[in-house]
């Protein structure tokens, strides 16, 4: 359905109306009285071999989305299919054999490595769980993986704290690669890193993609980095995807007002350009996902808000080939009007 005729590749991951609500309990008998709608109806495909960027503000549900796709949570609704297998409602036990195909690189390289395990043990853990290799074979494989991600093999017996952020992230990547996955969710793999190290990790990811034909879901809030790595980009706001487009068009001509604001907020590392840039500074804070506003989620901060936005939730639809937007500005009638109606 999302399939783009222009793209020859087939979707590896299909996400349909994915919902992930964290229940809020209260009252005398701890009845569920509400929910944090961290992810609230997200639909997209990830094509084989591509990198889908997922961007948005902090707390908009990016990580939750990524984790829900890998079924690290028991999802509230919707369906996820990876390589044809519908995993949305599978039990964790049934999922286990499928785990090798889908892996994750975590947001915080420090927090996602057990401080009391050696690097070798960390990278070996997936092998222990899913393969029947002998100890020697595992050691060899761990060594290879370390080579692949560019870690000195001699560091194998060290603990994570003894590494720099970039090296730690490499350990996380090596762990994710251990089982030859097809699909990797990279949850802000560079957010916690220094600029110069960020580049190292991004390059590594790209190299690996080339080498093994990996598919990435690349979560980030660093728009410049996403622009660099992603083929297509989905923009999230408060649990929903508001815009999805190929990289080029999105940066050149963002459609959704939120995307525009987001892009304009990125600081320009060139003082000459910086002073000429027009900025859309959003006012106010992101509403709580436990209590999203009526109508369009973005209506509280949108510079182009209309009355209809406060009443009716916009539908997420393809407004141009390969470009999906959920905004009343582009609703039903077609692009021409919408752009016209937009200042």
């Amino acid at each position, binding site marked *: 359905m999302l399939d783009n005729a222009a793209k020859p590749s087939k979707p590896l991951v299909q996400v349909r109306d994915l919902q992930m609500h964290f229940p809020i309990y209260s009252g005398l008998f701890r009845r569920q009285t509400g929910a944090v709608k961290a992810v609230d109806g997200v639909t997209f495909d990830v094509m084989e071999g591509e990198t889908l960027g997922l961007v948005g503000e*902090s707390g908009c549900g990016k990580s939750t989305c990524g984790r829900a796709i890998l079924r690290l949570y028991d999802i509230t609704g919707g369906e996820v299919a990876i390589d044809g297998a519908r995993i949305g409602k599978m039990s964790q036990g049934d999922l286990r054999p499928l785990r090798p195909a889908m892996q994750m690189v975590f947001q915080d390289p420090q927090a996602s490595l057990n401080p009391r395990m050696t690097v070798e043990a960390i990278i070996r853990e997936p092998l222990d769980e899913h393969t029947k290799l002998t100890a020697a074979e595992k050691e060899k494989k761990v060594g290879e993986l370390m080579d692949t991600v560019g870690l000195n093999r001699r560091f194998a017996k060290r603990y994570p704290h003894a590494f720099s952020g970039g090296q730690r992230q490499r350990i996380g990547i090596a762990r994710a690669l251990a089982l030859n996955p097809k699909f990797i969710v990279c949850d802000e793999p560079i957010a916690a890193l220094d600029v110069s190290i960020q580049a190292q990790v991004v390059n590594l990811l790209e190299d690996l993609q080339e080498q093994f034909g990996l598919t990435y879901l690349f979560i980030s809030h660093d728009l*410049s980095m996403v622009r660099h790595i992603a083929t297509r980009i989905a923009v999230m706001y408060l649990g929903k995807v508001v815009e999805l487009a190929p990289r080029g068009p999105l*940066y050149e001509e963002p459609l959704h007002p939120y995307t525009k604001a987001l892009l304009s*907020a990125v*600081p320009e590392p060139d003082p000459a350009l910086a002073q000429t840039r027009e900025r859309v500074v959003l006012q106010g804070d992101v509403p709580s996902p436990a209590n999203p506003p009526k109508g369009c989620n973005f209506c509280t901060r949108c510079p182009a808000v209309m009355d209809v936005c406060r009443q009716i939730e916009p539908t997420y639809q393809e407004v141009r080939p390969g470009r999906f937007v959920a905004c009343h500005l582009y609703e039903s009638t077609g692009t021409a009007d919408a752009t016209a109606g937009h200042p």
Partner: protein
Amino acid sequence: MPDGADLPAGTTPVLDVQHLKTVFRVRGGEVHAVNDVSFALGAGELLGVVGESGSGKSVTMMSLLGLLPSPPADVRGGTVTFEGEDLLQLPLDKLRKVRGGRIGFVFQDPMTSLNPVFTIGYQIMEPLQEHMGLNKSAARARAQELLELVGIPGAAQRLNDYPHQFSGGMRQRVMIAIALACDPKVLIADEPTTALDVTIQAQIIELMKDLRDKLGMAVIWITHDLGVIAGIADRVVVMYGGQIVEHAPVKELFRNPQHPYTRALLTTIPKISGERARRLTVIQGQPPILGDAPTACPFRDRCDVAIPRCSRENPPRYDLGHNHDAACFVAKGSQHAG
């Protein structure tokens, strides 16, 4: 290097740091985190400080106000002249008057820098009562004013809220409000936006610009995000390995970077617009270990233009004209200056 060399001619510095040196004593040796750092800050000026993680930015600034825990920290030398007094020699009770009173400090991590068990109001009012001698109600009124100033809606009610009830961006704004509480002459902001996402970062940058124009204070803004610097700084100091390796007005620096580290830094950042690089440039190698006082150029191992002299001698900061200097033997104009 001569005093005031950092400043555009004719301005007198509000804060003048000369030859600052800070060492941490740790198990198994010492960490020379800040080595012979000198810079000056003019009134109403915004000085950007960039450098990769661990290059000593935070330590430098905290040394100024004696905020480092000692032990392990030990400020070994240098002078910090502020309003005619050397802060490093000041007795603690006088220094306390400077801290929070005339120099405000915004820390790197807004999530942990506020005390979780006191209300925001209390925490803003504290320095007001301490330094300006305001009574409770006056302090409260002022606190409310400050919250409004940093753009927090419903300030009156929010004074009674606890930090955890604020979002990260709001907490950072509260930190700024605290730092601004006593109308400081100088505001030191240590990566105030690194932990935030772009939209909030944009809000804070706008706020800063505003406040600076309104209050006319001098600001030191630490970051490793060159994009931010490009947007707001007047002058930039680039730190590497505990030293200032380059210093220039902002446009000059971006147009004409002289230190190889600065150049490398500028190329690593992917651009939001324009041509998309096929591959990101990386600075190969690892940052230096600061185990000893430097005897050689700290960047030599990663430098693509290193010459043998780099590993024998630590280059001094060569004045390159146009208020621009760089600590590199191979920088343009260093030859004649050296």
